[in-house]
């Protein structure tokens, strides 16, 4: 009985291969997109963890200076002589030969032994820290060796090391970073002697339990990606829901027969669950494989983005990590479960002799439409609650989810209303039949249309966000990159010679000088700027005290960038953790790290050893100055860059940042298009009983096919109209909530009607394409099949 029942159930899929394809493809695509994003995240996280493994062990606390400045050797020795068991660490990055490497310098004598052993495990240094202490020894990944070809170091290649990080003795790393007397932080040993005096007031001890800087900075970015993965998954699940629901409806006859033959409802449900389980396993497997391909294709761009935006290094190579492929399979199962739950519950309640008629389906659809509208209302209310009381990125995404899913649930009811209205205003039997028939089809298509709505809204929202950002960013670059030429020299002595020469030639030289500091535990940069019209006129100030530039020149405080202001809730008049009053806040889209600007004089007082090697040059004839510099001093490569080059580079970083988003967007839209195609194909066979009478009344098959195309276009167009306001709401949430949380900046929103029109046309084309094949099939349906509808009816 069980075996026969299973055969009877499975025969449905043999007769409806398109439906099976819908189910498998929908689930596989949903899993693939989710899985791809997870794979990227997992890869990045693994890279961070490996990098963090260098030293940022959670078992140890770190000591830092409250003002974020570096410790000197003297500070360190003073602490040790007080009895504090601390070990110095210097961190920094160097950029050589197109390689960016994060350097970590440790002091093997005082480093807690457990850390040292873990770090050197499996390497030739495992025998002891002698190799580390060896003059100028540096442990690097083979991929990073090229960065050190010109350095006087002994490289120890180790493929186990995270790419983009190098470990060496503190003396070696200080030498490479040209910071002979700097200590970034001190690792506080877990064991300390009795009777320890307190640390100086200006020092702080940070709990080691926190995440690494890079993980904290990039968390938002990964959450962003995850949200996109979920959105894609949701779109896919709509397809699966539709397919499962349809298959259940169509097999009512089979269910009834099986039940009438004596199969218990429980066993029937187990069989159906088994069937779906096998499908989800197959689709999940396909999805994971596809997800791997997607991730492999996107990873280089994500890696570039993370490097450009956060300075985080991740390997460009994708590995099969159990975390993400298991999560992919899990999502496939869970998704199928969600999609099938409603159908299974319905089956459990199915009266034994319920009669099998297509109307039953649409009547039921009406009831479920009401139910969905109720859920939608609930979602809108909770979305509103998130908007009012929620905080942070999670609230932002929760708001987005409520908004999108709620709107999607409203869609069938809205479409029904629109079609009803259209039917009322239309004249003529054919037109009225057209609209009525469209409404009749709605239940079968609504899931695909909901997917389309989500995809379009996401597309509009994200493209509005990216385009708004691009517009703002371009304007910002014009303001920020106001010097005609940018000069970078190797040493401060060279710089002095070149710049004094330039000054005699009437070129205005603006030093660009900065130092790495820490504010509230996160890395930041402090800049010293000269009081000059270039800054006064162009700096992209968002909010400031009156006479901000005069105040800055008089050393009465500092300017900070927007990300720092938002992260620490600072505004003009507040005081920075370093003690400087905030004079103003400026927009900065360079990277996610905080920035502080003080006057050149104050900078020199605080960091007397620091001398400028980078300069902005203001010149009337930049071309001539550039030629003179190249000819006289032999400057090459990036030693001298003009404004246009720098802008182009910055824009390219920007484009890369959003290329992943754009790619995911396009994929989501394609999934929705596919959903429409599959739904129409499924409906095509189902709809013959409705079409046959119209054909019998004299409408040609060709005419009917054209009407089918028109219907697809109408439904897509109406969905598209609903998608525009939803997409704009999405854009607003992305710009005002998600961006602020993810990157630390809030952007003005601009509208791009031409882009929306373009998307609308694209969507109509997709709908047309999706409807084309079913329409052609309809046009070629042999008349006898249409006639058979009448004979079957009897």
């Amino acid at each position, binding site marked *: 009985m069980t075996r026969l029942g299973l055969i009877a159930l499975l025969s449905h899929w043999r007769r409806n291969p398109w439906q099976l394809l819908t189910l498998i493809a929908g689930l596989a695509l949903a899993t693939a997109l989710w899985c791809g994003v997870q794979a990227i995240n997992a890869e990045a996280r693994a890279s961070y963890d490996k990098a963090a493994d260098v030293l940022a062990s959670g078992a140890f606390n770190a000591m830092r200076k409250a003002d974020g400045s570096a410790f000197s050797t003297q500070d360190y020795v003073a602490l040790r002589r007080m009895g504090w068991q601390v070990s110095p660490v210097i961190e920094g990055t160097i950029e050589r030969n197109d390689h960016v490497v994060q350097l970590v310098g440790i002091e093997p004598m005082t480093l807690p032994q457990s850390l040292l052993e873990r770090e050197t495990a499996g390497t030739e240094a495992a025998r*002891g820290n*002698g190799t580390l202490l060896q*003059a100028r020894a540096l442990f690097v990944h083979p991929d990073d060796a090229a960065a050190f070809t010109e350095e006087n170091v002994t490289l120890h290649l180790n493929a186990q090391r995270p790419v983009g990080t190098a470990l060496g003795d503190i*003396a070696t790393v200080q030498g490479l970073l040209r910071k002979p007397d700097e200590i970034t932080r001190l690792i506080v040993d877990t064991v300390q002697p009795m*009777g320890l005096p307190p640390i100086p007031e200006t020092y702080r001890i940070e709990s080691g339990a926190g995440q690494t800087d890079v993980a904290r900075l990039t968390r938002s970015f990964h959450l962003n990606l995850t949200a996109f993965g979920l959105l894609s998954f949701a779109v896919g699940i709509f397809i699966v829901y539709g397919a499962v629901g349809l298959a259940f409806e169509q097999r009512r006859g089979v269910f009834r027969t099986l039940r009438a033959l004596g199969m218990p409802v429980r066993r029937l449900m187990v069989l159906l669950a088994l069937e779906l389980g096998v499908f989800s396993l197959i689709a999940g497997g396909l999805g994971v494989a596809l997800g791997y391909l997607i991730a492999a294709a996107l990873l280089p761009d994500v890696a570039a983005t993370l490097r450009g935006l956060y300075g985080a290094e991740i390997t460009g190579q994708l590995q099969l990590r159990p975390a993400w492929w298991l999560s992919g399979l899990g999502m496939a199962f869970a998704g199928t479960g969600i999609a099938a739950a409603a159908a299974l519950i319905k089956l459990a309640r199915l009266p034994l002799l319920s009669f099998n008629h297509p109307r039953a389906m649409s009547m039921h659809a009406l009831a479920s439409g009401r139910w969905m509208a109720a859920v939608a209302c609930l979602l809108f209310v909770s979305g509103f609650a998130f908007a009012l009381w929620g905080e942070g990125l999670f609230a932002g995404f929760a708001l987005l989810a409520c908004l999108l899913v709620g709107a999607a649930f409203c869609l069938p009811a809205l479409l029904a209303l629109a079609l009803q209205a259209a039917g009322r205003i239309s004249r003529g039997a054919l037109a009225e039949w057209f609209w009525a028939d469209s409404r009749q089809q709605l239940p079968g298509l609504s899931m695909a249309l909901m997917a389309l709505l989500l995809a379009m809204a996401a597309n509009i929202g994200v493209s509005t966000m990216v385009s708004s950002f691009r517009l703002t960013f371009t304007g910002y670059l014009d303001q920020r990159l106001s010097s005609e030429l940018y000069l970078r020299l190797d040493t401060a002595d060279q710089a002095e010679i070149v710049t004094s020469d330039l000054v005699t030639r009437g070129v205005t030289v603006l030093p660009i000088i900065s130092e790495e500091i820490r504010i509230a535990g996160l890395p930041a940069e402090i800049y010293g700027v000269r009081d000059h019209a270039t800054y006064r006129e162009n700096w992209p100030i968002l909010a400031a005290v009156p006479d901000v530039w005069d105040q800055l020149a008089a050393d009465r405080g500092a300017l900070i960038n927007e990300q720092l202001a938002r992260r620490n809730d600072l505004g003009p008049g507040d005081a920075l953790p370093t003690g400087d009053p905030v004079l103003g806040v400026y927009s900065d889209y360079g990277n996610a790290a905080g920035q502080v600007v003080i006057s050149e004089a104050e900078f020199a007082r605080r960091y007397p050893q620091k001398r400028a090697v980078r300069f902005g040059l203001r010149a009337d004839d930049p071309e001539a100055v550039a030629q003179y510099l190249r000819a006289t001093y032999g400057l090459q490569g990036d030693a001298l860059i003009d404004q246009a080059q720098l802008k182009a580079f910055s824009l390219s970083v920007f484009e890369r940042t959003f290329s992943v988003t754009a790619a995911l967007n396009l994929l989501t839209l394609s999934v929705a298009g596919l959903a429409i195609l599959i739904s129409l194909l499924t409906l095509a066979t189902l709809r013959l009983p409705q079409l046959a009478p119209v054909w019998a009344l004299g409408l040609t098959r060709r005419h009917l096919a054209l009407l089918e195309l028109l219907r697809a276009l109408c439904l897509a167009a109406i969905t598209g109209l609903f998608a525009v306001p939803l997409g704009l709401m999405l854009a607003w949430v992305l710009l005002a909530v998600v961006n602020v949380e993810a990157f630390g900046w809030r952007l003005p929103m601009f509208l791009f009607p031409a882009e929306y029109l373009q998307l609308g046309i694209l969507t109509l084309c997709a709908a047309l394409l999706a409807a084309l094949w079913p329409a052609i099939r309809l046009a070629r349906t042999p008349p006898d099949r249409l006639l058979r509808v009448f004979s079957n009816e009897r």
Partner: protein
Amino acid sequence: MNGNPLVLIVFLWMSLACSAFAQGFAGLGSDAEGFAVPHRGYAFDFPADHGAHPAYRIEWWYVTANLQDAEGTPYGLQWTLFRSALAPEDTSDWDSPQLWLGHAAVTTPTHHHVAERRARGGIGQAGVTASPFEAWIDDWQMAGADMEAVSLRAAGPTFSYDMALTAQGPLVFHGEDGFSQKSASGRASYYYSQPFFDIAGTLKLPDGEIDVTGQAWMDREWASQPLGASQVSWDWFSMSFDDGAKLMGFTLRDTEGDDYTAATWISPQGEATAFPDGAFSALPMAKSAVAGRMIPTTWRAMLPQKGVNVTIRALNPQAWMATSIPYWEGPVTISGSHSGRGYLEMTGY
């Protein structure tokens, strides 16, 4: 000596892989090449020789003390600073090849408290200056205007102490006027002691502060390669007899040949008599289970020329130095032909 060249050499090889360094650093060869080597007839120069000798590979300032409180409860105390050079030079920055290691301990009849410190030279975290005398690593310190009166401080997670030491007799030179031979093949170190320190101060232990007094013994030794490759372990005794005389003796155990022994008899006035290989002998009598191994904590020591035939018992058999290179070191009581107190160090068990 006190000392444990062994501890240091193991430390050197295991922990610092000195050969790799020496080859990489300034083109020096391995082993003693480039380092100064002790020679006979060296004229000690004080206070300079109380200071560091960076041209030699290893060196130590080693203080042990037998203490008692007002009730007569005995205690032991150790304060040691080791210097270990990767190259025979010094710089005033992080590049310094001079490395420092500190060991401190307090032994009670029931507990043994240990701490270790590690540092690199060049930056001021550890070092030794001769005049005024200061030997330090982190907050641990041995300091005074000269070697006549010094203060001694150390702290670990479960103890700290602050002591004042006053010399009651002259410095004592071991071997041939401070040239102390360590093997039949002639390997040697410079080795002198101040065995006549009176000591008084306060121990801070988990149960509270304890005022103590007693006698302390300081060893100074430096060399570049004092031990042969097969001399892998070592027993060292310092004995202060109740009649005021003192005896230092050690056995260097050789895996390939005969053990090598040496001893110095010190009269109550500080006159030293050195005894050659074979004169002094020490036999393990009973073992205790310590840190998962069996260690002799009762010994019979003999120096027939001076009529010494004594039984030496550990005050606390569990005086295990659980440092990065572990060994046993603790106070002992002496009975037999002579009675008194002393210190015992055993490595390689």
